[in-house]
């Protein structure tokens, strides 16, 4: 069992607060991704878990054992570094076996584990070479093999794919996912690449300014962001946001956006009614709107500004009442610039956001 418990952990560098009061529980053998823009504190949090750079406050436990004040070598963890941090003066074999040797594992076991790890990463033929003459992809494999050979309960990865070129990154992403499925370790994976996060993680913790904004399964994070930041950070294109005015009359509440009145579902009625002020923000993803050529009572008329055919879909930039929206449509729908289209906003796809807190009011 290697559940990771992060309790009220804080860390600052001088005046700059990197992580503030973060609470996070990572279940045994879970693949947790820490996702966020650069400077959000995700690497600092990972390093706090690793023990590289002591947390200023809070408590960290791994497998029920408090490791807050333990050096990294005693936390039963292993790690893949962003720069790989391979020891340049050692052969690949010695690199992979380094941790085992330091932990006084007996020689025959070390040899066996090195060979297993090398086989898993297809670097058997590199074992007796030095890293200086290797490509980035090969070094990356050595770094992963070194981490896996430890057979630690916790595997930490700090942007392991960020130094690879695009094609290799795609290939390694799938391979890592396959590989880590077979490794019995709780994994914490730091990345700023949302595709990596969504495709690999069991859960994704989205971070911003040292705080975790949302920690959920990839689909949930994508479909039901808890706030405006998560909606705008995840997804390509990001979620659309439209400012609306609340109309309260006779106990009935509606929202007017771009001169169109949206009726509300029973769950959201009271929430929006109780909002202070008259403003509310509508959030919706590009692929969740229905595009029609003919108007219906539920549709909003929009003017097409840009058409971007992307193969699997056409991405339209449309304008309505001074707002701009990104709408994705089926590639077979023929649309021209300056054409008028009619868009329907399905009520269950709309996320209403409190404009003062930026939190999503209700997620189905």
């Amino acid at each position, binding site marked *: 069992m290697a559940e990771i418990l992060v309790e009220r952990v804080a860390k600052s560098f001088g005046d700059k607060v990197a992580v503030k009061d973060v609470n996070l529980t990572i279940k045994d053998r879970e693949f947790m991704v820490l996702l966020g823009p650069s400077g959000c504190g995700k690497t600092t949090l990972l390093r706090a878990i690793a023990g590289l750079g002591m947390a200023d406050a809070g408590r960290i436990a791994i497998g029920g054992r408090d490791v807050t004040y333990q050096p*990294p*070598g005693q936390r039963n963890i292993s790690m893949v570094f*962003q720069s790989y941090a*391979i020891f*340049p003066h050692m052969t690949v074999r010695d690199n992979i076996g*380094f941790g085992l040797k330091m*932990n006084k594992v007996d020689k025959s076991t070390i040899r066996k584990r090195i060979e297993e790890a090398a086989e898993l990463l297809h670097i058997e033929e590199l074992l007796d070479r030095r890293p200086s003459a290797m490509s980035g992809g090969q070094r990356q494999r050595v770094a992963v093999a070194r981490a896996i050979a430890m057979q630690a309960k916790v595997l930490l990865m700090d942007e392991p794919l960020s130094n690879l070129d695009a094609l290799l990154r795609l290939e390694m992403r799938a391979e890592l996912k396959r590989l880590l499925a077979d490794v019995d370790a709780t994994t914490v994976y730091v990345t700023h690449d949302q595709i990596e996060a969504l495709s690999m993680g069991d859960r994704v913790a989205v971070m911003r300014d040292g705080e975790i904004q949302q920690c959920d399964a990839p689909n949930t994070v994508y479909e039901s962001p808890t706030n405006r930041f998560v909606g705008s950070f995840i997804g390509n294109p990001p979620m659309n946001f439209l400012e609306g005015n609340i109309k309260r009359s006779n106990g009935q509440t509606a929202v007017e956006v771009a001169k169109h009145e949206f009726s509300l579902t029973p769950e959201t009625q009271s929430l929006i009614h109780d909002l202070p002020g008259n403003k509310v923000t509508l959030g919706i993803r590009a692929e969740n709107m229905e595009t029609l050529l003919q108007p219906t009572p539920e549709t909003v008329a929009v003017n097409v500004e840009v058409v971007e055919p992307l193969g699997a879909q056409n991405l339209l930039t449309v304008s309505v009442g001074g707002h701009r929206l990104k709408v994705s449509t089926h590639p077979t729908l023929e649309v021209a610039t300056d054409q008028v289209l009619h868009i329907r906003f399905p009520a269950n796809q709309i996320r209403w956001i409190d404009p003062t807190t930026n939190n999503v009011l209700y997620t189905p």
Partner: protein
Amino acid sequence: MFFLYPMYEGFVLTVYDDDALLPIRESPTLSGATVAKLPLGTELEINDRRSQEMVNAGSDDLITDQWFQVEGTGVDGSLLRGWVTEARIRVREEDASGQPLAGTVRPRLGEGADPLTKIHAEPNETSSVVGQLEQRATVTITQSAELEVWFLVQPADDMNSGAAAGWAPSSYLRVSEDASRGWVSGATSGEFTTKFIQRMVDDRFFGPALRTTLLLLVLIIPVQLVLALAMALVIHARIRLNSGFLYVFALPIGMSDLAAGILFFSIFTGNGLLNSALDGLGIIDGPFAFLTAETTGWILVAIVAAEVWRATSIMMVIIVAGLQAIPDETLEAAELFGANYFQRVRHIILPLLKPSIQVALILRTILALQVFAVVVALSGGDVVTVLANESFRQYADLRNTNVASAYALFILLLSVASAVFYLRSVRSEAEVRPT
């Protein structure tokens, strides 16, 4: 060129003797073809003499002839003007300053002697004869010239007896009273020689100087390497007061070696700091003389202390630079994979520092081979001596540039040898090329 020429010049000074041989010539002029070259001291038989152009007016051994330009009536009654040696003229009239104005031709004495005296166009015996004068003829002296005597010499000792006879100017010869024998006393022509190197090796200070230099090397370098590594690791550990350590460690670089020597002299001297401290603690009664000819061991201790104090930080700076080139993540990875501090130093830091350590060792060894001012300040340069000091002694005290140069070249040779030794024994390029 700027870098090579002085080295070439030093090499030439060591192996080439500028003034080893005297060329002797076919005819008694500098333009005469050289028939042989004779080393200094060659014994000679002298067979003839001529007055000729002046070659070396300042020499102690210079022998000169005076020649007069005279005017008079020749044997054939015509008016003659030409040069004749002073030996043939008796001066009868001088001006106030002693310049000869007029005289008569001396008569020749002895049987069968030519009664006439030849007058030459130029002031030397090989120039053409313009006419002859009767003995006792009156002449006016219009000019006088001083000429150097050249001797026709034949090597007379066994070693050079085969050499041909030829002419040499008197200034390079020492001749006997009757000018029948002599030897070569000066030379103008060079030859390659090992005699300066021989003289260096035979010098009574050479052995002690070499021994002391190497002993200091063996005593100083390991201490400094360990100290410099420790200091660099302290600075790299990023603990509090870190930059304070750096300044304290690095400050001695700013002091000249002579000043450092004098400083340690003042510590070790009779009423210096060390004696005061030991006396104050009651360890000794009265001052102990550390720096005397009877206590060369203590002088060595003082030299080692001064050198360690002064020059360890040079190694430290190089090693700190090497440490900073090791990426933080590499050390973190080692820590994360369970290496404690000493294991990190042993398995990661030291192997990655190899190139820096190599540079530091080479540089420091070369500097240690040149150790000079500290030794002179602490020992006066006689009781304990080192190679650089001998080079200076040969140059400054004994005025022997060639032997001084031989010492300098010997130090260079040791430096190159030590650099090659380090490069081979700490072979590392392939292993630690940074990734």
